[in-house]
């Protein structure tokens, strides 16, 4: 039994039953899951969580699923690593990396899709769907395979083949849409109205989004039941950013840890930074942009949760950092060379944002800081191809020593 009460509109507060809905019929505002926190607080404890599996399902009591029949690929409870070498370089004694690149399909999207696919089965859908340029496609196709569901994955026709393979291998119907980003967006919004599919980030969105909270829970638990002083989070739709904050706060409100004082820092690439731009200019509305960035997994020009992300930055005393495009690869390289973690472009954005915050003194040396690494570098190899400079030699010792002498 879950502690879910209803869905409610984040704008006008109207309540809706637990159904596959994502927008308020009255004001078209986004819907969010509402819980009975009093009952949840009576049932939940650190001990109960610690007895759970070493996956995100250890937090099942805090998630919007009804039974114990979940779609489980072993997602979550990913490593929180103390980053001594990177920390030393940046002058930070308590820097941690949340390495979510080691999830089953190599990104944090497994978390949101785990919840969305479980909920889709509860609603008796037989098909999962999404529109994606990478990580989400793989996560949806894999979870559908695991659940025995059909899946439809819509991608722009010019998507790199490697990314298509990462989804196609799981056997979905892969649809390559000829058209620009806006046209794919428009088509998928229309298809979601036409077909009875569980479109993970459309009609399943209120449940899907809750999966991201577990990145807040896990970090707090792994830090010894406390929230960090700073969290640096990559932002596309803004959902992950706001849900990590929600995760910290729920743990505090449920009495699982002390008050949360985390400053939430939003990291975007300069070529698509509508949330950071709104924060920097003091706007309370997010102006849509046309994405033009190598950080493809962050390329959302009209972020659904942008307004709430800006609010979260302000309410927590956080900041927004838009990372120059040329520093994205530098961030990937810095993380790989200092800590042995190969992240995708979104991770490069986070590490470069972290460096900027440390250099400007926004983060103090002794403060507990967590940088979220949400995807694996093998997915965006084209971004770092320029770094590939092997020593090419003839097969003899002399050739090797000569080549080394040249370095």
């Amino acid at each position, binding site marked *: 039994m879950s502690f879910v009460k209803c869905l409610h509109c984040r704008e006008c507060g109207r309540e809706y039953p637990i159904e596959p809905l994502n927008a308020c019929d009255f004001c*078209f505002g*986004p819907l969010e899951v509402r819980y009975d926190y009093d009952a949840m607080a009576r049932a939940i404890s650190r001990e109960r969580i610690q007895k759970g599996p070493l996956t995100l399902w250890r937090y099942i009591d805090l998630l919007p699923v009804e039974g114990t029949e979940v779609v489980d690929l072993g997602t979550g409870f990913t490593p929180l690593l103390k980053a001594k070498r990177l920390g030393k370089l940046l002058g930070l004694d308590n820097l941690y990396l949340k390495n979510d690149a080691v999830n089953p399909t190599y990104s944090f999207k497994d978390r949101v899709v785990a919840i969305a696919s479980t909920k889709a089965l509860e609603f008796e859908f037989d098909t999962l769907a999404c529109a994606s340029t990478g990580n989400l496609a793989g996560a949806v196709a894999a979870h559908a395979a695991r659940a025995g569901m059909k899946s439809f994955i819509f991608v722009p026709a010019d998507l790199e083949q490697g990314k298509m393979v990462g989804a196609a291998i799981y056997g979905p119907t892969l649809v390559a849409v000829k058209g620009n980003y806006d046209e794919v*967006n428009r088509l998928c919004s229309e298809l979601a109205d036409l077909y009875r599919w569980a479109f993970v980030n459309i009609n399943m969105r209120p449940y899907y989004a809750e999966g991201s909270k577990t990145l807040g829970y896990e970090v707090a638990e792994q830090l010894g039941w406390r929230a960090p002083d700073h969290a640096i989070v990559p932002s596309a739709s803004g959902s992950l950013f706001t849900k990590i904050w929600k995760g910290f706060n729920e743990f505090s409100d449920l009495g699982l840890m002390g008050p949360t004082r985390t400053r939430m820092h939003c990291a975007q690439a300069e070529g698509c930074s509508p949330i950071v731009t709104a924060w920097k200019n003091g706007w309370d509305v997010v*102006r849509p942009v046309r994405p033009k960035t190598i950080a493809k997994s962050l*390329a*959302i020009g009209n*972020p659904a*949760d942008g307004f709430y992300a800006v609010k979260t930055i302000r309410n927590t005393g956080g900041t927004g950092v838009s990372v120059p495009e040329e520093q994205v690869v530098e961030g990937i390289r810095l993380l790989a060379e200092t800590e042995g973690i190969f992240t995708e472009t979104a991770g490069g954005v986070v590490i470069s944002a972290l460096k900027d915050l440390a250099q400007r003194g926004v983060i103090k040396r002794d403060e507990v800081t967590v940088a979220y690494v949400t995807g694996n570098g093998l997915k965006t190899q084209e971004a770092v191809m320029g770094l590939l400079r092997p020593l090419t030699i003839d097969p003899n010792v002399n050739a090797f020593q000569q080549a080394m002498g040249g370095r």
Partner: protein
Amino acid sequence: MASRRVKFTYTAALIPDPVIYELGKRFPIVTNIRRADVRETFGWVILEMIGDDADIDRGLEWVRGKGIRVDPAGGDVVEG
């Protein structure tokens, strides 16, 4: 009849234009505003459009032609 939920984003120069009024006069479309925030420098309107699919498409093309950005009301659905 089809229904579509969209968001129009205006720059300052376009705010004085009665675009939604004209949209309803030029095309057989019913427009129904649900939320909006229009200021001196910038504005957005979330509205429902009801009509035939082809008319809505033509209407939205005309709106785009005026320089107004049109997006799905719930934000982008293509994710990374």
